């Protein structure tokens, strides 16, 4: 960037910095919501499984995502778990 000499420059820089800070907050909030919703709904279940598998069974190949979900659903068939009223 070239050096700016006009008087408006500091103000513009301030504004940019402020805009950047707001954008950062929005981005972080968005990321937080995304993190929460995807974890809550179960999107991350496979990642968690793979991480676990890598750590505990380094030799063996983990299930594919498709296989993992099939197995998870089959398990749920065996044990559905109650929902409350």
């Amino acid at each position: 960037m070239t050096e700016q000499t006009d008087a408006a420059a500091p103000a513009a820089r301030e504004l940019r910095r402020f805009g950047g800070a707001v954008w950062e907050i929005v981005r972080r909030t968005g990321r937080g919501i995304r993190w929460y919703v995807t974890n809550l709904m179960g999107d991350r279940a496979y990642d968690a499984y793979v991480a676990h598998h890598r750590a505990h069974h380094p030799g063996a190949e983990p299930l594919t995502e498709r296989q993992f979900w099939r197995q998870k659903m089959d398990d749920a068939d065996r044990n559905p778990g109650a929902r409350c009223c």
Partner: protein
Amino acid sequence: MTAPSPGSNRAGQNSTGSNRAGQNPEQPADPSGDDVLTQDPALPPVAVPAAARAREARWTWPKIVLWVAIALLGGLAWVMLALVRGETVNAIWFVFAAVCTYLIGYRFYSKVIQRYITRPDDRRATPAEIKHDGKDYVPTDRRVLYGHHFAAIAGAGPLVGPVLAAQMGYLPGTIWIIVGVVLAGAVQDYLVLFFSMRRGGRTIGQMARQELGRIGGTAAIIASLLIMLIIVAILALVVVNALGESPWGVFSVAMTIPIAIFMGVYLRYLRPGKVTEVSIIGFVLLMAAIIGGGWVAGTEWGQAIFHLDRTTIAWAIIIYGFIAAILPVWLLLAPRDYLSTFMKIGVIVMLAGAIVLVRPEIQVPAFTEFAATGLGPVFAGPLFPFLFVTIACGALSGFHALIASGTTPKLVEKERQTRFIGYGGMLMESFVAIMALVAAVSIDQGIYFAMNAPSAATGGTVEGAVAFVNSLGLTGAPLTPEMLTGTAAAVGEESIVSRTGGAPTLALGLAHIMQQALGGQALMAFWYHFAIMFEALFILTAVDAGTRVARFMLQDSIGAIFPKFRDITWRPGVWLCTAIMVAGWGAILILGVTDPLGGINTFFPLFGIANQLLAAIALAVVLAIVAKRGKSYVKWLWIVALPLAFAAVVTITASMYKIFSPVPAIGYWANHFRYRAALESGDDSLGTPEVMEAVIRNTAVQGTLSIIFVTLAIIVIIAAVIVTIKAIVRGGGTDHEDAPVASRRFAPSGFFATKEEKRIEKEWEALPPSEDPVDWKAPAHH
């Protein structure tokens, strides 16, 4: 557990010096665990050291000011609700009274429970850590698990009970929901969760058998099975009542089936694991189904196909329940579950926002005359005990014991988090109940009674309803026929007279509030059907899941004699057991739908009694567990004994009323013999012989169920009291907890991490990857 032996030799074992984890004055217990629980010195602390916790717990001026302010605001709100008698009261005071009381209960009472009853120890590994398998046992982020747990406990229950209880005025229900949850409901959920976690996630039935012996345990299991059936039946009855003669509702709720199947197929074959994505697609389709329903209901063919009477809908739900329960989970139940979780959290946030934004004025008096007479049309019986069984979910719900044992405890990351998840999760359900109550009392009282009085009273017509409601002697302006027809037209229904069951009233209240916040009068019908859909979605999921769980219990019990039944891949066994369970709740549902006296008003008390009896059973099991923990716990047993005694007195009294009351509107048997005498003498003043036979049959079923429930509960409570007294006399008892294992991970305990917790988290983050404790060798690992 033997006497505590503090001051063991833990000091100096840690290299960092800062992590003398777990020297905790709250936990004199576990001398046996002390050596075992010595943490790996190579790791950062696995628990916040006691000294640091004490430092953080110290009272500072800002904290004192904050809590005084919360207490004052809460106190002011209670004064506005309970003492100030203006023309109206603003709904915002309900929100303040509830939230401030919850905060105080959570900050103070639940900490007392933690300090003297549960005494968690973060040096101990939880089942999720010990048995971590990446599937059933997964240490889950506390905030995510809170959401999971809440989604599993909260359904249609907290939405329905408060609506019915509004017939006594807003105050009795509000007090019970808020005070009940702090002293009873949240205590039960927290304790069951904690003790199940200490037992590897054992279910409440297994704990009952272990702690109370064979008779108590068997009674507890039979009671839970029967209660499950009655709960499914009554919830289904709520849906039937909401959808009867409503083509719009029937269409949009029916559309949830193809939508769920589409989502299931999408997740299985197209994009596995993209749960949020498919839930958003499902949500959009659901909205389209609601909007489309309005159009379909306006067409001739729509009327012809979807205008169904209640008996037809009841049979449709029975058939649906059977098919849904034998279909694979991925096709219908799992996607429905995703949708309901999504909707549940979304709608609750939305409704809370709308109430704060709109701040509706409440017209209903604090107490109506039905609180005194006990002869209201919505449900009969005096305030004590019937208010406390009508509002079960939201204040104290025994059913939660089934959720808090079993699934959630297998996912808890650290022991201290159980307070936030168990106690805090129930507080949130209570808040849902408060919002349902606000929605119900924000509509006109006359309309409320016209909707909730059984058609036996209103005749199902506008004129009948107006005449009946105006004869009740309500305060405020009299009900006019235009009010009923106008409201029905606004929500896109033919009639709103005698739409009992709570769901339509709640839907009207929600629509009333939402349209003021968003969209205006034009969107009234949309919001109404949105709310109906929302409730039907939960209930149909609960019907499906409840049938499956009940079927497993049955398969397991029959399997004790014929082992083949335990094999869940043996289809004939699955089908037979499903059919038996569906027949069980289906029969009650049909009786409720065809009940000449109304259905909801006669059956709903059974639902509440059943739910509270399960609570009494769960608390009785917990009481025995706590007494067995040792001498230092005896002094604090009242924390469990108080809600147990209350639940026991309430349910037993209510059962006695239902069995022995000579008032036909209250006592099942009194009504039974009254109709029987009329039938025998040929007196037709009570109805045609068919009607009388139906009443005789229904009251016999209701009366018999009441007797069975109360007997089972008394057996369990007596068994628990005997075990408890023995334990107190002996100074303790057999400890059935799993052996302690030292933890090798750390996580904060509450929603927000404290400074000290953040500092320890940083230490863990700084670990080089090879030192990461995931490679620890769990004993019970596959």
